[in-house]
């Protein structure tokens, strides 16, 4: 779960990382108030879950409370990087002399957390960090030791700190790792980490991602006003929201994580890897998916039924394909029951509406009996998912 900048800064403060004076607000009036408290020039920053705000007009300056109000009003009325702006962060404008990068993320090859310290901060650091000679220092973290003081000092030195700055910057390095440990973050980035005219170091921006699988034990987040939410690359559609509700009906199995597309072929596909494979194959053979929806983990009949009803409710859907890999634990017969019930509830006769199954594996004999009874065309395990995809793309066209 990616946090907003202001949320990340709440966590940063919790572990003692200095951040600029400021506050998140959701109205122009409150922005004026906060700017008045801060005194002097402020910066108004759109709170969206995407980088690259600066270039997109999501970071603007204001010299007095009146201007802060005006800027906020404008920002709340526009979209930044195609996201609705509902909140802004009003902060004291800093007198920056240096911008750096400090981040911690997971190194999936070394299977450790890795610290990354770069002499250039600001946007597009991902691209720069890959290039050799870009001034980035890396340090893997032993989970049983953490970040020793000397390592933090080395990285501070690499970033150009001297004198008292060495301790101050070293502290930020240690504390960023403390944040990661305390809040189960999978990514924590200060970009830019800035040095101001008076020689102090602050987190000018802060990007934190909390490990979705650890949210169950991060009760403190809620007390800090940070609540679990679903993460996507864009805002969910109505259909997607309803799908998520179906998935929540019951903890058994996955069925309902829907991503909507604008085609005419409704898909129920699984499991994780197979759904990716099937989707590719359907695109390759000229099909137009109405949705992506993965099933797995032996979902209940009811979840499958509701899901079928939902994806068939999309206007313009002309056919339905149910395709999975050879199943080990999800049951063919239960999938067949759920899908058929869903079709009937939508008033669709499986004999007339174009529908095809390629769902072999556990309890397939029972499943095939059900499909036979309702006159549904199916492929067994001697036919690949690619063959099924080709068939689907022809189905109901003639």
């Amino acid at each position, binding site marked *: 779960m990616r946090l907003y900048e202001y949320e990340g800064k709440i966590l940063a403060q919790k572990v003692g990382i200095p951040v600029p004076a400021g506050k998140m607000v959701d109205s122009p009036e409150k922005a004026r108030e906060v700017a008045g408290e801060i005194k002097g020039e402020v910066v108004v920053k759109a709170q969206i879950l995407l980088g690259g705000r600066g270039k997109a007009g999501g970071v603007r300056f204001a010299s007095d409370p009146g201007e802060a109000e005006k800027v906020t009003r404008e920002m709340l009325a526009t979209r930044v990087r195609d996201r609705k702006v509902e909140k802004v962060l009003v902060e004291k404008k800093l007198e920056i002399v240096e911008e750096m990068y400090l981040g911690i993320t997971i190194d999936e*090859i070394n299977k450790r957390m890795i610290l990354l310290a770069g002499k250039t901060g600001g946007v597009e650091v*991902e691209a720069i960090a890959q290039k050799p000679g870009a001034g980035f220092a890396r340090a893997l973290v032993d989970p049983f030791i953490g970040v020793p003081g000397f390592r933090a000092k080395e990285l501070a030195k690499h970033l150009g700190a001297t004198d008292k700055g060495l301790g101050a910057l070293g502290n930020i390095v240690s504390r960023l790792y403390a944040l990661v440990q305390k809040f*189960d973050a999978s990514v924590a980035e200060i970009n830019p980490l800035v040095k101001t005219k008076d020689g102090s170091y602050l987190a000018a921006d802060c990007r934190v991602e909390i490990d979705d699988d650890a949210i169950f034990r991060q009760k403190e987040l809620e007390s800090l006003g940070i609540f679990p939410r679903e*993460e996507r690359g864009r805002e969910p559609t109505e259909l997607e929201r309803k799908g998520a509700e179906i998935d929540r009906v019951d903890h058994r199995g996955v069925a309902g994580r829907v991503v909507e597309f604008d085609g005419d072929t409704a898909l129920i596909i699984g499991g994780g*890897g197979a759904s990716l*494979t099937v989707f590719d194959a359907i695109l390759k053979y000229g099909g137009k998916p109405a949705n992506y929806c993965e099933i797995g983990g032996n979902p209940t009949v009811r979840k499958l039924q509701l899901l079928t009803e939902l994806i068939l409710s999309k206007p313009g859907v002309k056919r339905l394909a149910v395709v999975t*890999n*050879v199943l080990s634990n999800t049951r063919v017969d239960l999938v067949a029951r759920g899908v058929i019930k869903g079709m009937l509830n939508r008033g669709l006769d499986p004999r007339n509406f174009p529908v095809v199954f390629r769902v072999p594996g556990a309890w397939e004999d029972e499943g095939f009996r059900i499909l036979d009874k309702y006159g549904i065309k199916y492929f067994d395990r001697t036919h690949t998912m690619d063959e099924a995809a080709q068939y689907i793309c022809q189905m109901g066209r003639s």
Partner: protein
Amino acid sequence: MSILINEKTRILVQGITGREAATFTKDMMDYGSKVVAGVTPGKQGQKVHGIPVFDTVKEAVEKQKANAAVVSVPPAFAKDAVMEAADGGLSPIACLTERIPKRDVIEMVAYADLKGVKIIGPNSPGVISPAKKAKLGFLGGNNPERAFRPGHIGVVSRSGGMCTEVANLISNAGMGISTAIGMGGDSVVGSTYLDYFPLFEQDPETHAVVLFCEPGGTKEDVLAEWIPGHFTKPVVAFFGGKFVDNMPGMRFGHASVIVRPGSGATKDKTRLFQQAGVRVVEVYSDIPKALREMLQERVKKSGKAISAARKKSRPAKPQAKKIKKTGKAKKAGKKR
């Protein structure tokens, strides 16, 4: 031969009294694997399908001489269970549990490194070596012999379901599997391609390796860099989820399937694989054809009688015995 597990593998199931474990334990036993003990704290003295249950791994190892583990416990307890197995010297440890916090995974993997044991997963369906009737986990469900015929193709898959699907395809095409591994669908897993490939290189019974890959992360990139100069056998790879390239930031399928700016796209991974001599097929149905072609090319090049060996692998059942005979005194099962 096989890698990771063989007929000498004595399996301990952690969480054996759970619903899922009760099912796959029976499936493993029916298949012919040696399940020797179970662990569920507080349930010592019980039996599951006749297998004795212990409170601790320590006792289970002492009494039943277990040497490998399957871990199927809820996510909040998985780290401790895996560390307990590692402490007991069990290897490999197949961790089937999904949704374990990453911080826990990093710690348990570091602990396994310290103890010199290998973790498969988490979020893995396990591993299977058909000629040895050895299986850790639930690959193939209650009739693994349908999808996994004994043979000479190694399989490594980021997806559990596709591990079975790809093996089924290879078996249908008249070939068979030496060892198939579900690597696990998470971004951090105990063992990656780099941990398995040296074992496949050393295993004389593995003639080629098939990979099921997905978008996201850098595991394939690192493998592509490693292969030249280290791996001499044919490799065929397929990427599921090519469409994800065009949808950065969106998550599909597994937790690790997300394309970020500048990394994870299948088109880049495909290019790197091709540069490393890996054959990347466009549709997975083409895997058997690509395997045949590459194995034939290899025969031409090396002059070795690999095609003969491949032919031998076709009638799966009678062959299994022969392989067993020659499979003695091999180190891969124990080697980490």
